[in-house]
């Protein structure tokens, strides 16, 4: 495995994001330019004069990485370097919320940019505030569980569906718990001309509140409970899913994380868990995850 993301970066022990980045770059290879928005990844990897990046990398602002990458794409085409992989690697706050206008523009214009979101389901860099990627009834610092609240009142935004609606040729979900699958998807995205969107489940030890050694296990449970379905859409058609051999109840996933502790302690928590179970069941049905 090529090491294009150097050790010595400042990510928390147990953070899934550097694992995801290493796998992405291993699949993409050195002929790559990465644009990243402001966020944990930028902060942990580029404290000047140090940099963890062994590939060309640029950071501009929080909400414009897709536009910056668009600008790089037109220059690579002009220089006849269309074989260069142009990636965005971004968190969910920048992707689902503040940067979505620039992303929509980049998708619609059909730039050869592979947009990869490491999704830890809240604004972790600023201290675990809710994003529109935060799942239903999650405890965050801006949607805290309390006497009259079960946390975030809204379901997670379906960002991959938004990408598919833009006719993005390749859209996939991935997980750090499935590294072979993740690498294969990045390679496939790079091989298909035009934009791509990959959303990677990337547990965050501080935001999700779990022990550092459990990162991969928790990411695996998200898939095994059908809360994080693994699928690919190619040219708008569902092109394959990761089957779940033995579907686990959502409690198995929820109970591993402090962000869901209130569901097991508060009166009415069982009803909320039942609703989350219904969401997992709907995923299983929609994507044909079972059997």
């Amino acid at each position, binding site marked *: 495995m090529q090491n294009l993301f150097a050790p010595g970066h400042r990510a928390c022990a147990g953070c899934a994001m550097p694992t995801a980045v290493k796998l992405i770059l291993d699949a993409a290879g050195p002929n790559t330019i990465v644009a990243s928005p402001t966020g944990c990844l930028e902060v942990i990897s580029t404290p000047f004069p140090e940099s963890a990046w062994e590939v060309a990398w640029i950071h501009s602002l929080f909400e414009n990485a897709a536009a910056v990458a668009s600008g*790089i*794409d037109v220059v690579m085409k002009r220089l006849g370097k269309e074989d260069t992989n142009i990636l965005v690697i971004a968190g969910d706050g920048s992707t689902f919320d503040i940067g979505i206008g620039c992303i929509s523009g980049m998708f619609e214009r059909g730039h050869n940019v592979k947009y990869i979101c490491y999704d830890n389901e809240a604004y972790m860099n600023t201290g675990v505030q809710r994003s529109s990627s935060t799942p239903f009834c999650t405890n965050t610092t801006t949607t805290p569980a309390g006497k009259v609240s079960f946390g975030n009142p809204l379901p997670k935004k379906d960002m991959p569906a938004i990408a598919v609606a833009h006719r993005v040729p390749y859209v996939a979900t991935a997980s750090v718990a499935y590294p072979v699958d993740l690498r294969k998807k990045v390679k496939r995205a790079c091989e298909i001309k035009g934009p791509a969107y990959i959303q990677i489940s990337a547990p965050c030890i501080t935001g999700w509140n779990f022990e550092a050694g459990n990162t991969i296990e928790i990411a695996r449970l998200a898939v095994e409970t059908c809360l994080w379905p693994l699928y690919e859409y190619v040219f708008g058609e569902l092109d394959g899913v990761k089957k779940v051999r033995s579907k686990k109840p959502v409690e198995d996933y929820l109970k591993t994380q402090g962000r869901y502790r209130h569901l097991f302690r508060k009166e009415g928590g069982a009803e909320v868990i039942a609703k989350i179970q219904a969401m997992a069941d709907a995923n299983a049905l929609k994507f044909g995850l079972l059997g």
Partner: protein
Amino acid sequence: MADSSANAGPKLESMKVVEGSYALAHAVMCCSPDVVSAYPITPQTHIVEHLSKFVADGKMPSEFITVDSEFSALSALVGSSAAGARCYSATTSQGLALMFEVLYNVSGMRLPVVMTVANRALSAPLSIWNDHQDSMGARDSGWIQLYAESVQEAVDLTAVAYKIAEAEDILTPAMVCMDGFILTHVYEPVQLLDREIVNEFLPPYAPKIVLDPKNPKTFGAFVDPSMFTEYRYMQYQAQKRALLAIERADREFFEIFGRSYGGLLEVYRGDDAEIMLIAMGSVCGTIKDTIDELRSDGVKVGLIRIRSFRPFPVEAIRKALADASVVAVIEKDVTVGNEGALVSEIKAALYNSKVGIPVIGFVVGLGGRDVTVAGVKNVVSKALGVREGRMDHEFEFLSLREELL
């Protein structure tokens, strides 16, 4: 600085009567940008429409990105410029405001983008007409700001802006500010640029450090408090060097194109002027006409036309005011809560100097209101009053319609 009488204007027979936006777009084409990224907004639209047509007709081999917003327009150029491309955009007013965050990023990353600002008022209340509140609001963004009086000057400044911005010891983005509608939509005789002659004046952009997988570099790293100040200081020094570069570029432009504007500022009928007016942009045409009229009546009045607002030409202003008795600043912006931005900066420029003369300021032409000869005469009469010891107002809105208040 040079007296405008030294200008060797273009020969009339080689001029074309065209719309200001066409002339400007043509100038951009002659500068051969690799990438144009822009979003339509009145009164900038005609510029980007003409550029699009040049590209569509195969006359301009540039990449034109039709982006989703002004924010994306300038953000895309961050990527393109970092990848080594010569970049262009145009905007105005709300569009410039939407770019605000990116402006600082482009200058801080030392990306020499050139952008036309078709100056327009900022909402609310909504107005599509000209004043300078938009670019004035971006004065601290680290960009060079050059202000044109005429279409010809906006055309010429476009090439000059690239020359200055891309200089290795400057590497600072530049705005060419031209008054919306007044210059963008006017038809007047213009000497269009010639691509081959522009190539003599403007060498190809060949930055040393670019985004390149073969030589991977990290762009846009963050710095901690032990280094941030030094980055700003380096930008500050680059703008100081731009003071000389703007003068030098004006001379070089004259040598090749036969047109000169005075560099950092133009002094009009400044010899023996007791009352010195200071202004920027197209309003200077009206002011010059008024000065001609008043001079024929024996009033000793002149004009300093600021061409470079950033970098601000403090020394040149002091020198040009050495023999004046009163300064009256006429500007199309207001810093609500204080006074006009230009009058504040003129006062600041004079404070620690030997030029201890009164300075008064006037806001004119907001939201596109015409500035008339009578209005300028009113300013001069107030300045004459100050010379005789009557300063009723240090700063005021000229020609206020009291009945609306």
